[in-house]
């Protein structure tokens, strides 16, 4: 029953959106009525999504999708998240979020009526395209042809609280760019005033903040669940999310720039189209199963071709409009040797180069396989060797960019900065001399600390310190950059100065980690409702009274016959001690211990960036 409701409301919503799209050319109607239709179709899409969720919650195995991906033994939260833990459901979530964005946009005031309407028409067009994709190739409401009373279960690695919320947040970022895209295209068509730029800024900030959160959650999940001790693997799907993130960063910065300069409009339109194109491209790469990664779903060529077509139409349409309806010539940029405009232009260029580098690395295996019928994989070494050096000058520039002037070459308080930079360089150099010297470690630490320091100098020397909301809004760019600096410190330390220790142990053995004695207490096997867990219990620092207990092990999911690894992590502010329990051989357990310094700084940095993203949304 719920499947029927879901399917019909989905189809009905697509019908309305198609009708709204046509209304641009034929059946024209008033804005009031138009908004009513948009909101109604959004509610229908929501209804469709929630009826799928309902089918999951009540374990309605007459729905083929629920049968394939759920199990009645699962805890409620994973029944709910099971809704988007599979291809069909996650595409419906995609559409649902698109609808929610349209819904909110239809309530936005302070924009011209025709402009709002045109934006929503483009949204309706996107809704129709993706809706048809779902109905024809990925229908989550198919009826199960056989009568069953139990489902096949959800992929065990998805049974995790972090991952339950990761897709919706990430999608909110991806799909949020659709509004930015629609606004930019509408702006090109109407070519009126520049009011749309302020509207676009808000939406692109919202999308970017969501995308940041989504990527960080996915990365944090990979850190503690995949059990490899790292948090970023240059997995194709990670790259796909990173591309719109960097492009979005360039977009957000360009939108800030508009306050001072008008000439950048063309560039903003380009970036707006690019961001959403990259999002759709990412959807294509993941959903077609064309890339192998932890995200692989069952591959299906017809799905791939359909969504490739959507990607082609959307991106082609976007750039074609851009080509034909180029924004009017505006006054030239006020480029000086070093002022705000030139710094932002350089940063934008670097970000685009970085995006293209990642794009190349991601699609290169496809090109090679088509041309030479050979399989290659492009991984960490390529990306580390190309993307990082491209970003470094950008980071350096970033540290002082917010205090540069719009009109002149002068930097206020330049002496303070020079002094600060020299002192810091010496300190970092001394530090890295006493620890083992590593070029990337040195560069990373210097950059990270310098960005933090320069931003703090800027805050203290440029503004009067007050504790109120307005003040926090003013210093927001600096705060965002402090977040980046802290993240860079965390990234550098955890990747360059990671330490790995391997042990073969019996229960009751003591071993030494980082100068502290650790006791391998025992192995425990516990039967949980939907899995069996094997845990090695460790007592860290047994010499002290408050020794800490760490559990590392594996879960075995009998329904899907899968084993997942569960790393045991002892979080300290300055390092994570990461335990991985390996296999048992000759009565000895293989235990790997990784010491990851300053990992917490990465998450702290990301949280600061997201905070300032939110603050920036509220700032006009």
């Amino acid at each position, binding site marked *: 029953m719920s499947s029927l409701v879901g399917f019909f409301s989905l189809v009905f919503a697509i019908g309305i959106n198609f009708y709204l799209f046509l209304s641009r050319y034929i059946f024209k109607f008033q804005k009031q009525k138009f908004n009513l239709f948009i909101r109604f179709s959004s509610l229908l899409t929501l209804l469709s999504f929630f009826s799928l969720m309902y089918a999951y919650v009540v374990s309605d195995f007459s729905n083929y999708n629920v049968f394939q991906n759920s199990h009645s033994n699962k805890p409620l939260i994973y029944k709910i998240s099971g809704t988007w833990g599979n291809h069909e459901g996650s595409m419906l979530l995609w559409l649902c979020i698109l609808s929610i964005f349209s819904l909110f946009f239809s309530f936005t005031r302070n924009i011209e009526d025709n402009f709002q309407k045109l934006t929503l028409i483009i949204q309706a067009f996107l809704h129709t395209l993706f809706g048809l994709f779902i109905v024809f190739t990925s229908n989550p409401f198919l009826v199960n042809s056989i009568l069953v009373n139990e489902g096949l279960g959800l992929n065990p690695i998805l049974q995790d609280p972090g991952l339950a919320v990761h897709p919706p947040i990430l999608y909110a970022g991806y799909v949020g760019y659709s509004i930015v895209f629609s606004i930019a295209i509408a702006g090109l068509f109407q070519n009126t005033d520049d009011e749309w730029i302020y509207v676009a800024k808000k939406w692109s900030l919202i999308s970017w903040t969501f995308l940041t959160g989504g990527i960080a959650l996915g990365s944090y999940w990979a850190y503690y669940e995949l059990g490899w001790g790292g948090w970023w693997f240059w997995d194709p799907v990670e790259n796909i999310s990173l591309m719109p993130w960097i492009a979005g960063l360039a977009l957000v910065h360009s939108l800030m720039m508009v306050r001072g300069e008008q000439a950048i409009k063309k560039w903003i339109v380009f970036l707006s189209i690019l961001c959403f194109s990259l999002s759709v491209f990412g959807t294509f790469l993941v959903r077609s199963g064309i890339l192998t990664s932890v995200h*692989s779903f069952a591959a299906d060529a017809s799905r791939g071709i359909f969504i490739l077509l959507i990607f082609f139409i959307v991106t*082609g349409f976007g*750039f074609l409009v851009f080509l034909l309806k180029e924004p009017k010539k505006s006054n030239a940029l006020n480029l000086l040797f070093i002022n705000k405009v030139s710094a932002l232009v350089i940063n934008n260029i670097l970000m685009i180069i970085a995006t293209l580098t990642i794009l190349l690395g991601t699609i290169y295996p496809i090109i090679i396989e088509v041309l030479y019928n050979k399989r290659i994989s492009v991984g960490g070494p390529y990306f580390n060797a190309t993307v990082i050096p491209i970003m470094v000058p950008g980071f350096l520039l970033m540290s002082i960019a917010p205090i540069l002037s719009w009109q002149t070459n002068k930097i206020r308080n330049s002496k303070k900065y020079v002094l600060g930079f020299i002192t810091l360089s010496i300190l970092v150099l001394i530090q890295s001399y006493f620890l083992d010297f590593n070029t990337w470690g040195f560069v990373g630490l210097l950059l990270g600390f310098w960005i933090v320091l320069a931003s703090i100098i800027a805050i203290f020397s440029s503004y009067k310190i007050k504790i109120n909301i307005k003040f926090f809004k003013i210093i927001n760019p600096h705060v965002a950059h402090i977040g980046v600096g802290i993240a860079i410190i965390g990234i550098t330390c955890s990747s360059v100065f990671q330490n790995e220790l391997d042990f073969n142990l019996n229960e009751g053995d003591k071993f030494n980690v980082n100068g502290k004695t650790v006791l391998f207490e025992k192995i425990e096997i516990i039967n949980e409702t939907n899995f069996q867990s094997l845990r090695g219990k460790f007592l860290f620092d047994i010499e002290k009274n408050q020794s800490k207990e760490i559990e590392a092990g594996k879960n075995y999911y009998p329904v899907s016959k899968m084993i997942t690894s569960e790393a045991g992590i002892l979080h300290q502010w300055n390092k994570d001690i990461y335990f991985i329990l390996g296999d048992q051989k000759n009565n000895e357990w293989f235990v790997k211990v990784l010491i990851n310094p300053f990992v917490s700084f990465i998450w702290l940095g990301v949280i600061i960036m997201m905070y300032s993203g939110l603050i920036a949304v509220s700032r006009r």
Partner: protein
Amino acid sequence: MNRIFILTPLIVLLIICIFSLVYLLSGKDPNKPPSALLNKDVPIFESSSLYNAKDIIKTKDIKNKKTLINFFASWCSPCKIEHPLFFEIRKKYPELYLLGFNHKDPTSDAKKYLKDDGNPYDFVGVDSDGLIALEFGVFGLPETYLINEDGKIIYKFMGPITMDILKNEIEPLL
């Protein structure tokens, strides 16, 4: 000049789409890498029968006859789907030797499975620790290999075989 600049994204888009389309249409699946064992000698193996631990099969026992090797398990639902097809093959090609490897399965489960669904195999070898599958480069169950009289792997299929695959890909080789 400016126009060319704006045209670039469209050109890049076209290139990406063409390559992706060719890739998709070529039926390649990145999850199913081409087997390095194709046209190579069958790996050396030794396995005991599911029904009689003293009954052993070795690589040299399948020399001089065409053999179809199928890796299966009672817990693998796609195996259940392809299972009836082996009876068809059995009927159509009585001279073909059907060798099943029971992969990481408790003996009792495997026996029950073959009792309920029937046993089409000439020999069911036990591969409880998955070492034979490792030698064959098995990626996921089920997987099927065709070995010619010279003991070379001439065909490999990952996933459940279907009527289409049997007709179009396996039968021409028999």
